């Protein structure tokens, strides 16, 4: 095919096309996988499958394992079933020659924090992981999506994955982001707009000047929650912000490789005139900080609102579970716990944002507050900047890296009825522990809320 025939293409299509290993009429495309991230929870049965069929890991050099979901992030003993799962991860990595960053290793952390941090996450790659928040890596212009354990085994064995080509959906985020409004508020507003199933079967491409103005951390927060809108993946075209962030990271290209990479990466944008299957535009000039009131991430309002009247049975059930009455001002709701962490908001930028608000202030009486850095390297960097002292002086617990209270499968859980302001991504029933009640917020709202004792923004602190 000559250049003459080149039709304008979307970013997602460009990355897709360069990874097609095999294509046949009526079959899904067979896509090559550049980077496969694995963790202890969704991989043991995949390794068992390899053992049963006598297959090796095809490309250990494109595979990286860590432990994040059920690791304890503080002192105390762990339940024996979790220990068994982590031991299986270690044994499988050893047997199949896979690099593992186990607990206690400086490289350990949440899988979606360590990939970018090491410079392994790069524009134009196909990245998969047995975890739905793999969409995070799309912030670099990679096509990144979560897979199930059967697919994990498939990638381990073949370094490829049969995939139907998803549709494309442009999310145009226009206007200047007002002060005090963060990437988290942008994505919560998008999910409220398109719904939890609004992105099914589609790759979202976030575009517009508000997206361009976000830091890489902010872009990762946005792409991270693409799955909460049901999307197959979320992407942002790489630009100078991306390239500057990658420079100097351990696995980022250098010298002549960097020159070649940059030339390629600059081509990874949606061409003018390329058609998306769907398009949505959000004006964020008047956006306000968001707080979720229900049990799915589309059930949110702004901090200035009240708990809405339920419009359907699902909303009624959500309000009953959350023990909230319609008409209650969001600012009147008092959490028992504040959690800053998770693959959505645990990077250095998130911690700086929260620490800035907490400097010289203290956590409200009786409230439990914790910060869980996304990786041990984030933890070390924060300590070098003195952020740990700000958090502990304010009354926050300062913990080791892991998924922690985002997912109720490690020692850090909510008790039944306990209410939490959380920077994580899911407010599903029981997500943070059976009977726990989760309100999704940004790091700055979490920090301000911790100080005041009810939902608040930094501007409420005076």
């Amino acid at each position, binding site marked *: 095919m000559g250049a003459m025939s080149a039709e304008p293409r979307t970013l997602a299509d460009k990355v897709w096309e360069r990874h097609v290993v095999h294509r046949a009429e009526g079959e899904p495309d067979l896509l090559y996988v550049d980077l496969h991230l694995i963790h202890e929870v*969704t991989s043991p049965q995949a390794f068992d499958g390899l053992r049963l069929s006598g297959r090796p890991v095809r490309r250990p050099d494109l595979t990286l394992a860590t432990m994040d979901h059920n690791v304890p992030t503080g002192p105390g003993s762990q339940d024996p079933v979790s220990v068994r799962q982590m031991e299986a991860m270690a044994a499988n990595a050893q047997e199949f020659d896979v690099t*593992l960053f186990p607990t206690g290793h400086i490289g350990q952390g949440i899988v979606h924090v360590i990939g970018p941090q090491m410079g392994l996450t790069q524009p134009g790659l196909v990245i998969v992981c047995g975890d739905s928040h793999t969409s995070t890596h799309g912030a670099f212009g990679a096509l990144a999506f979560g897979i199930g354990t059967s697919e994990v085994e498939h990638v381990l064995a073949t370094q490829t994955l049969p995939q139907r080509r998803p549709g494309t959906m442009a999310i145009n985020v226009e206007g200047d982001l007002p002060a005090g409004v963060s990437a988290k508020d942008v994505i919560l507003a998008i999910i409220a707009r398109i719904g939890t*199933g609004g992105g099914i079967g589609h790759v979202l491409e976030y575009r517009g000047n508000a997206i361009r103005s976000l830091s890489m951390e902010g872009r990762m927060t946005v792409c991270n929650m693409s799955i909460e809108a049901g999307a197959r993946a979320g992407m942002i075209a790489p630009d100078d912000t991306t390239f500057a962030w990658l420079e100097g990271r351990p696995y980022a290209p250098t010298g002549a490789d960097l020159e070649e990479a940059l030339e390629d990466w600059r081509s990874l944008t949606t061409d003018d005139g390329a058609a998306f299957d769907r398009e949505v535009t959000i004006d964020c000039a008047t956006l306000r900080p968001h707080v979720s009131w229900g049990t799915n991430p589309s059930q949110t309002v702004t901090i200035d609102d009240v708990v809405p009247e339920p419009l359907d049975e699902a909303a009624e059930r959500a309000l009953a579970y959350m023990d909230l009455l319609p008409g209650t001002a969001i600012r009147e709701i008092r959490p028992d716990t504040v959690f800053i962490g998770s693959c959505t908001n645990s990077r250095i930028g998130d911690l700086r944002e929260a620490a800035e608000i907490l400097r010289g202030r203290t956590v409200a009486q009786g409230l439990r507050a914790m910060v869980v850095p996304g990786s041990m390297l984030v933890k070390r960097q924060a300590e070098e900047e003195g952020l740990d002292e700000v958090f502990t002086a304010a009354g926050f617990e300062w913990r080791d890296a892991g998924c922690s209270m985002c997912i*109720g499968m490690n020692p850090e859980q909510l008790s039944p009825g306990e209410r939490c302001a959380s920077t994580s991504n899911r407010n599903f029933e029981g997500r943070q522990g059976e009977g726990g009640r989760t309100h999704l917020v940004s790091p700055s709202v979490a920090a301000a809320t911790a100080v005041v004792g009810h939902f608040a923004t930094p501007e409420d602190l005076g």
Partner: protein
Amino acid sequence: MRAFTVHTGRAVPLDRSDVDTDQIIPTDHLKRIERSGFGPFLFDSWRKDPAFVLNDARYDGASILVTGANFGGGSSREHAVWALEDHGFRAILAPSFADIFRNNCTKVGLLPVELPEAATRALLAAVEADPSLEITVDLQTRRVVGAGVDESFEIDDFTRWRLLEGLDDIGLTLRHADQIDAFERSRPARLPSLPRP
């Protein structure tokens, strides 16, 4: 993978939309390293409510789940599919499914059947009124028949063939091993890779 051709069975009506995988199998039960044994923990939190439909003895032994839109959203955990299958479900009928969940179903042999909203509503009402009604899900003819409904459904030919034959995806892919080799030779050397541990 378990093959699926035709299945006839009674159905459980779970009249909720946006049922996420955290509800299907709560995280606390994801720590097993085996592929089996998840059935007892299916909908574990909801089952603590005596009024929850799976606690209704009239639906014991039912093998088809009829439910609301966007079933299986959230986490990628295939454990959700294993739990449904282990409990005895062979097919799930809903207006829409979350992408990863649907993929996982087709790898395991649990059939996700997308039906129009009206047909789903009709089935929910019918099996709520009469739990003894049988429904036939036929993958060969792509039809759901029973409980007053006769509806065709769509599924792509390739996935249908794999399910009918119960084929292992890895085996299918390895037929293209030469193409994978060739693709790998063409990848730029600058792409990131890890040293052998």
